[in-house]
């Protein structure tokens, strides 16, 4: 059987990769990739700790999974807005390099 530490290890590796991407990348799309990877690390941790604990009585036992569902939906909304901003930035500057984007005017 897998132990809880294995899932936490995978989550930690995903989080470290996301931090690395946030620091080194200047392309807005790569930054979005890094943020999505870090959100997935947090979701994986959430479900892992919930499933390896006895849980609250009654329907509250599914609390962690419910929060992860909300988190996934929020991440989808966030990705839609970021991609719209990327398209606008590309239309204005022909590039999505975040160090070049000094203006946020429509």
């Amino acid at each position, binding site marked *: 059987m897998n132990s809880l530490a294995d899932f936490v290890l995978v989550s930690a590796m995903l989080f470290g990769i996301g931090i690395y991407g946030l620091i080194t990348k200047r392309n807005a799309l*790569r930054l979005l990739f890094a943020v999505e*990877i870090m959100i997935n690390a947090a979701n994986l941790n959430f479900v892992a700790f919930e499933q390896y604990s006895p849980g609250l009585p009654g329907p509250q036992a599914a609390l962690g999974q419910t929060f992860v569902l909300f988190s996934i939906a929020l991440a989808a909304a966030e990705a839609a807005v970021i991609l719209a901003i990327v398209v606008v930035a590309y239309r204005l500057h022909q590039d999505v390099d975040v160090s070049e984007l000094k203006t946020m005017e429509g």
Partner: protein
Amino acid sequence: MVDATFIAMMVVTVGGAIFALEAEEIVYGAIGLAASLFGVAALFFLLNAPYVAVFQVAVYIGAVAVLILFTVMLVRQEKWSKELPANAPSRVAGVVTGLAIVVALIVAVASTNLTSETQLQNTASFLQIGQLISSTYSPVLEILALVLGAAVVGALTLSRVDRQGPEEGEKQS
């Protein structure tokens, strides 16, 4: 002991994440991100959380990854794949910071008794998820629907092409 399925899915998840950030062609990077998200969904299955896993596949791979893929193909430029060698200091700083965080988390986990937790103790089913969503957390669900609607309207407003006054950069879009 870990089983082979876990090892395979860990390789897919972590390898896909690294490939998403380091692939020369950003389209392949988007596909690597989809592979990483699929690996996380498989880990949810291993955690006995099938509803979350299916939700992850439907929303992340079905919607977000496809959205990212189309946007990448819309704004892709050839020069991105050539100017990859970023300035060395920031790359070293990124690798050092990422490794430091991973090592710190591993040391923290090793000092606990998480490795002895080998039994999945929570037997929550999707019935209980439905009960929670529709009773205790129904306000959250409605606010989440509002947020999603506002995000979609905002995205459409942002990316709308103004037909009245064509500007310089809008000709090829």
